[in-house]
Every structure is written in C-alpha cells, then in structure tokens.
C-alpha cells in the first residue's frame, strides 16, 4: 500500500472532540456530512484545504478523549489517507484499525505543514520528499496489521464470523 500526499500539521493531545465535535457527531450517521466539520475547532477552514490522499500529522497522544468512532470515519470521509503521530490514545488507535484508517507511529518533529510525504506501509518506510529524509516507522502488531489489511473489523467478521487470528 503506497500513499502519497501533503501534510496538515497539528500539535500534541489532539482529542476526538477536536477531530469531530460533540455538537455535530450526535446529529447524523452521514459521515460525508460530518467530514465537513473535521478539525473545525482547531482550524475552521480545514476541510476546504484538504486534497485527496493528504495526511494529518500530530504530536503525542493523538486521538485522546472520547471513544467516538466518528473521529476516524470523518477523517476517512474527508479523503485523508493516514494519520501520523508520535503516539496515539488507545481507543482511537483501535478505532482506526477497525475502520481501516492507516495510522503511523513515528517521530513527527521533522515533518512540517505542507511537506510532501511518501509512505510504504508494508516496508515500513516514510519518506519526506520535501526534506529528502527517511523516517523510521514503529511497526504495527500482527493482529492489528491483519485486521487493517483485511479492510477493518467488519470485513474480518464477514469473513470469519468471529475473531480469527490463527
């Protein structure tokens, strides 16, 4: 899976209320509609700045807070291909795997707003084309890679009817 796109950079502790606010998420299950409000409280113009395949890049503890799965779903529906951060909060992390949103754990200090990145998930390589540097990615545990590569937990259950990690 090769990904290419430009960076939208945020700081530490980006919580799920910032990703999609509670005042929007309760209104509808239409994720295309919710996607318009992604990151609204941090950057009201965010949705209009995104081009298909772009990346959200954060610092530490990305996705902390509420368990809302609308957070990764709204990100996916805003045409973001992956979230890259130094570390992730655990419920958000699980929700990304389950919904099929790629997440990449690595040092993000050398990634800035507008940088062009190329990512090869299988090989575990992130190349910052703007800066001409390669950044090491923390590999995903096998169980999570399996669910992600199958397209998420719904697809896993469609295939096996229950959890199957053998």
């Amino acid at each position, binding site marked *: 899976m090769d990904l290419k796109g430009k960076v939208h950079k945020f700081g530490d*502790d980006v*919580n799920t*209320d*910032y990703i999609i*606010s*509670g*005042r929007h*998420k*309760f*209104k*509808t*299950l239409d994720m295309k509609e919710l996607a318009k409000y992604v990151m609204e*409280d941090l950057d009201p113009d965010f949705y209009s700045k995104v081009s298909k395949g772009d990346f959200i890049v954060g610092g*530490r*503890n990305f996705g*902390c*807070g*509420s*368990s*809302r*799965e*609308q957070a*990764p*779903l709204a990100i996916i529906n805003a045409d973001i291909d992956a979230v890259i951060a130094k*570390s992730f*909060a*655990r*419920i958000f992390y*699980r*929700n990304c795997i*389950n*919904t099929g949103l790629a997440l990449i754990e690595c040092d993000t200090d050398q990634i800035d707003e507008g940088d062009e990145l190329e990512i090869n998930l299988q090989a575990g390589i992130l190349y910052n084309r703007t800066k001409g540097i390669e950044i090491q990615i923390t590999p995903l*545990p096998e*169980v999570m890679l399996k669910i992600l590569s199958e397209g*998420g*937990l*719904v697809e896993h*259950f*469609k295939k096996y009817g*229950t*959890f199957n*990690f053998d």
Partner: protein
Amino acid sequence: MVLGKTIAEKILSKHSGQDARANDIVVADLDFVMGQDGTSGLAINAFEQMQGQKVFDPGKIAMVIDHSAPSPLAGVSALHKQMRDFAELQKIHLYDIGDGVCHQLLPEQGHVLPGNLVIGADSHTCTYGAINVLSTGVGSTDLAAGLLSGKLWFKVPETFKFMLNGELPKGVFSKDLILYLIGDVTADGATYMAAEYVGEAIDRLSVEARFTISNMAIEMGAKCGLMEADAKTTDWVKAHSNREFETVKADSDAVYARVKEYDVSKLEPQVARPHTVDNVSPISGVEGIPVQQGVIGTCTNGRMEDLRIAASILKGKKISKKSRLIVAPSSRQVMIEAMREGLIEIFVESGAAVVTPGCGPCVGTHNGVPSDGENVISTANRNFKGRMGNPTAFIYLASPATVAASVLYGKITDPREFF
C-alpha cells in the same frame, strides 16, 4: 520462577483461558457490553454489515440513551429510535431518556460485578474499576463485534500502580485527588496501561467517591482504573445485585511497569484549567476567576454523595446573580433519593436549574451550552475546547464542593471555608 500477576492480568487470564501477561494479545469472553446514543447507531450498522442476526446474550447487553436525552434534534431522535427498535428486536436492556448516565446505571442496576470483564462504547467505561471490574472504553465497531460474539481482542496492559497514603483533609475530595494525579502524570502518563489505585487514602473513601477516581483513569490515558475490593466494595455490590461474584487481588509479587507513591494529607482542592485535563492548579492559583456557569453532575460527580456535599454548601443560600448553576443527577434513582432527602429543593431554591439525568451539559449536546468567552466551572471530566458546545468558552474542572462554593460567589472559590 513464575512471577505474580496484576489485577488486569488475572482478569484477562481468566476470561481468555490463557496465561495472560502484559503485552500479550488475547481474545477474551465479555461479561457485559454497553453502548450509548453517541455510539450505538454506528455499532448497530456495523452489526448488520457483519451479517449479525442475534446478539450473543441479550441479558448481558444494555443500550443507554443518555448523551442527548431527551432528544434536542430530529436527527438525534432517529438515532434513539434505531436503538429502541434494536433493543426490542434483540430483547436487550434499554435505558431510555431520564433513566440516567450509563456509568451510573451499570453498577447501580447490578449489571457489573467484581472480577468481570466489561466493554462499553464510551471512553469513561473505566468507571467500574472502582468495584474491581476490568472495564474499558471501545469504539462502535468493537462494540458490534462484542454484541455479536461476546468476545473482544485485548492487548494485556502493563500496570501503573498509584500508592495513595494518608487521609484527604476536610473540604478536599476524591475529585481533587484524581485531578492532582492527572496533573502529575499528564494526559498520556498511563497510555496503554492499567492504572491500579491502592493505599489507605483509597480505603478511607466511600465506593461512590472511588468511582470518581476510576472514571477519570482515561484522562491519564489508561485502559482501566482498577481498585481492589474491600468490605465496602462487597457490601455496595451486594446492595445492588443478588448474583455471586469473585473479587480479584493483585499478587504481592506482581510486576508493575511503574509505581508512584503519594501522601495526600496536605492536598489542596484542585482545579483543571482550560483546555486540557492535565492543566491542573491548586485552588490558590485560580481563586477569584469569574465563572458565569456551574455544572454539578455527570458520570464523574453526579451521585448522592456529590449532591449532598453541594447541597450542604448551597442550603439556604442564593447563587450569585453573576452565575448560573445546572444540576444533573446521574440517574433516575439518584434523582428520586435526592428528592426524598430534600436536596433537589435546596438546589432549586438556591437558583439552580435541575435537568434530566444525562450527559447533555458535559458533552455539549444541549442543556447548558455556554456563551462566547464565558467561564464554566464543572464537575465533569473533560474541559477540551468546544467540549460544552462552544469553542470560545473556557471550562474549569473541580469537585462538587468547589463548584457549589464558586457559584455562590460568582468566582472560583476555595470550598474549605464550608467544612
């Protein structure tokens, strides 16, 4: 030599049938599964996409309509209807508008017992750790998998043990203690870990006060906030359920990733300042900041003990004309008890607006969205920008005593003068 286990390792071993050790990945059987109205809609859709027909065990599942209850919008009403229809079809427990906040209801209605493994599609599901339950928040697709199979995969967490010595001073409460701990270890200080809260400071607390601590384990990034069960725990649980249970204790040679020791005897009331929960200050650092709105309630601090403390401060007094106060008891049962004790009368006479048991004022769906630039002091567990429905408002988090004292004066006030 085989080393001992933490509470989390023991519960996950028992529920997976494996020798579960920190960082292992196990598939484990669930004792109870819960969803609320912000998460159940997506879960029902995922359940259907997974080609689910029947839930694994209707008696072990509850859906709770609490986050926007009663519904403020037609879109929300449609989600509520979807939950009611699903509950009727699958014969699972449904708690409807006014029944209360999910994290009050599950222990109060006897659905969760010591030693249980529980998931809820709400991040504050960690609350039941206070009664020795390994309970953790998940998203909607995990919830769907749980509804269908009665199982979930878990990474066995390492454990961060908090040794809490001493006795909290008068006017200082379990909310102050957990805010202090979060400020100390920060919002990701226990990420991916189980927190274990032990020591004489915990032993001295009531079960209700302990729920406040476990409730906020997620605010330090933890998967769960566990406590051992003592006589208070077993008495409390037996008052809420007739079912048998087995409590779980950590082995004396259990392996901990981190241990921190604290003496709580000199702790001041604590306040989390905008816009992160770990931005904590002793009350002395924030006293005098004007507050236009107070909130008492939520899954953190909406129980009888909380309402009694707040009412003891507000009794016979009027809140400041510069402040408003919203009180949301955490369940119908709490509301009824508070009525019988005369607490609701005290709140209403003091000038408070008492609203339906539920989550609204905390999560910004309705029931008290602040105005632009206003300061709010709340007993809730999150003060993120926009959390209460207005990104230009400022939210301070504190104990019910601090909130009650603050709305009396219209500014952040040290509650110790009342005790």
